[in-house]
């Protein structure tokens, strides 16, 4: 029988490649048999804490071997993992804990302490499993905590772990993306959803046990699913990239060279920065055989540079969303001389059915015609956790099968087809933008800003940028008689929004320009901003 749960991938690889290195972080590494054994210990400890099939377990680590061990531990216990970013504002993390009904948090003693310190209310969790060598006694009010050190964990002792039987339709993880209502929304993904993509990708990209994946994306970002599970399925090595290195392109290039990375998968902006500032000519990047970029538009001049410096790499523009995983790809062949060439998002991967509907709800089939893109595949998620209304808007019946409740994901992306049958991205049906690969609902920023007592209205304006996709600015209309300032609003946003969503600069207007239909004229504001002296564009 085929592997039908995500942790089966690890179990099988641990039998087949027990001594292969599974995860590398700086000077430390674990083999497949270590990872298998240690994750069973975690699963046993979670079960002792009362975790059962379907429970949500928060996983809060920065990049570390412990993070990967914990992830497989949660899956083995039958629970659903919910990544919580240790760098996210405490209020956002608290929201996710409450909204997903997370009972148990698996993290380090330090992270739990920091979270408790920064939280205004008592955390909603009742238990915590703390991973670390420091046997510090942690007391956090009513939270029952248990400590586990992976270094001293006895070989063969699985902490009483009992394998859990369940089907591939069970939810495996919940990933949060920006939500237009002012709160993030949690996309619930089943084992089958994830495995459908993983199996396809492992075979499509000929991944083998000798590959070395660079894991760049944080766990709460769905690119991590490819890095972690495709590597584990094939017995390859996951080389975790320390977070700080993506800020320093010279160091990033050095790292790829030193770690002999073969598979790279990241948002485009990291690669554009690498091309622009990485001093690539001083490095040997011949180990790279596969380079995936996604999330935002890759400017052709940088792609050309990368192709020159990464001579053995095949480049792919990958298109997808958390809700349906990556559904389309465009293999880069010869790069045209024209710098204005827009790289297509390409054609569907095997086992994906992708179509676009025009305004008359007919499938677009002629080159040049525009429509909204829909994805049909076993990768399409169940919906948003604890949000029926939003799920109903985005996960809709397939209009091509009117007699069935077959669900497809409505992406909100507008596309055209070119002469070769490739899809081209042409815009959005709503106000979602990408910045540094992150999805940002402008309304989420606007809701937070408008929540300030001295603000009447706020508009977030994306300004396209070659290196990071979009830079976010905001225009604020203060309440009459109020003189709210930039600094006060930054202070207000910091505990409420992740760093990448906080507008870089804010401008103030007595009122906002309106269109004839009574909506804020975003286009006019955008043009005003780009041409105004008030805004410094470094």
């Amino acid at each position, binding site marked *: 029988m085929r592997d039908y749960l995500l942790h089966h991938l690890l179990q099988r690889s641990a039998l087949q490649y027990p001594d292969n290195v599974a995860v590398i972080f700086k000077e430390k590494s674990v083999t497949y048999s270590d990872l298998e054994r240690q994750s069973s210990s975690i699963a046993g400890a979670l079960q002792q804490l009362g975790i059962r099939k379907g429970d949500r377990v928060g996983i809060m680590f920065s990049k570390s071997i412990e993070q990967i061990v914990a992830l497989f531990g949660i899956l083995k216990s039958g629970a659903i993992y919910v990544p919580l970013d240790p*760098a996210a504002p405490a209020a956002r993390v608290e929201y996710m804990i409450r909204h997903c009904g997370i009972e148990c948090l698996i993290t380090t003693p330090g992270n739990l302490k920091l979270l408790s310190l920064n939280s205004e209310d008592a955390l909603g969790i009742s238990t915590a499993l703390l991973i670390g060598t420091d046997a510090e006694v942690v007391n956090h009010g009513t939270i029952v905590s248990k400590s586990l050190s992976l270094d001293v964990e006895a070989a063969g002792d699985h902490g009483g772990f009992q394998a859990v039987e369940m089907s591939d339709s069970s939810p495996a993880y919940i990933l949060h993306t920006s939500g237009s209502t002012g709160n993030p929304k949690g996309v619930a993904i089943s084992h089958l959803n994830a495995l459908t993509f993983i199996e396809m990708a492992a075979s499509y990209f000929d991944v083998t046990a000798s590959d070395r994946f660079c894991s760049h994306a944080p766990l709460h970002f769905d690119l991590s699913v490819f890095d972690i599970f495709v590597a584990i399925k094939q017995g390859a090595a996951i080389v975790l990239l320390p977070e700080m290195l*993506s800020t320093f392109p010279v160091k990033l290039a050095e790292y790829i060279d030193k770690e002999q990375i073969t598979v790279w998968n990241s948002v485009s902006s990291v690669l554009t920065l690498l091309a622009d500032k990485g001093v690539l000519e001083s490095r040997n990047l011949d180990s790279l055989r596969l380079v995936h970029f996604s999330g935002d538009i890759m400017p052709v001049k940088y792609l050309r540079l990368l192709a020159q410096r990464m001579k053995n790499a095949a480049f792919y523009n990958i298109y997808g969303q958390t809700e349906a995983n990556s559904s389309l790809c465009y293999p880069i062949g010869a790069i045209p001389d024209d710098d204005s060439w827009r790289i297509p998002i390409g054609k569907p991967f095997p086992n994906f059915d992708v179509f676009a509907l025009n305004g008359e709800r007919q499938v677009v089939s002629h080159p040049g015609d525009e429509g909204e893109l829909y994805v049909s595949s076993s990768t399409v998620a169940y919906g948003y956790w604890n949000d029926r209304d939003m799920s109903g808007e985005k996960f809709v019946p397939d209009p091509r099968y009117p007699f069935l409740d077959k669900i497809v994901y409505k992406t909100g992306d507008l596309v055209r087809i070119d002469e070769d049958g490739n899809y081209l991205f042409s815009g959005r049906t709503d106000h979602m933008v990408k910045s540094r690969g992150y999805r940002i609902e402008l309304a989420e920023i606007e809701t937070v800003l408008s929540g300030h007592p001295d603000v009447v209205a706020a508009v977030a304006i994306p300004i396209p940028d070659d290196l990071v996709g979009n830079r976010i600015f905001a225009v604020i209309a203060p309440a009459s008689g109020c003189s709210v300032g930039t600094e006060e609003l930054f202070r207000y946003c910091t505990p409420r929004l992740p760093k990448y969503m906080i507008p870089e600069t804010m401008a103030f207007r007595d009122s906002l320009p309106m269109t004839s239909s009574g909506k804020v004229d975003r286009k006019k504001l955008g043009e005003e901003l780009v041409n105004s002296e008030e805004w410094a564009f470094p």
Partner: protein
Amino acid sequence: MSVLESLENYLLTEIAVGLGKKTLGPDEDLLELGIIDSLGLMKLISFMEEDFGIRIPDEEVIPENFQSLNCMAKLVELQVQN
């Protein structure tokens, strides 16, 4: 204003706004604190180049040179001499 003061002032008013910090110690680890991310770093570099009339080569954009205010001030001095 000294190099150190001017860097501190820029970081507090442009990069770390919202954290509610009033001062930055000369040896405080700004990377550890998460004050400097990739976009912040780009802005910081263009400020340093303009304000001090220097050019910072890509090779020098490494954590060792941006860890703290003191590290950045040293980098500026070195580039001024060049």
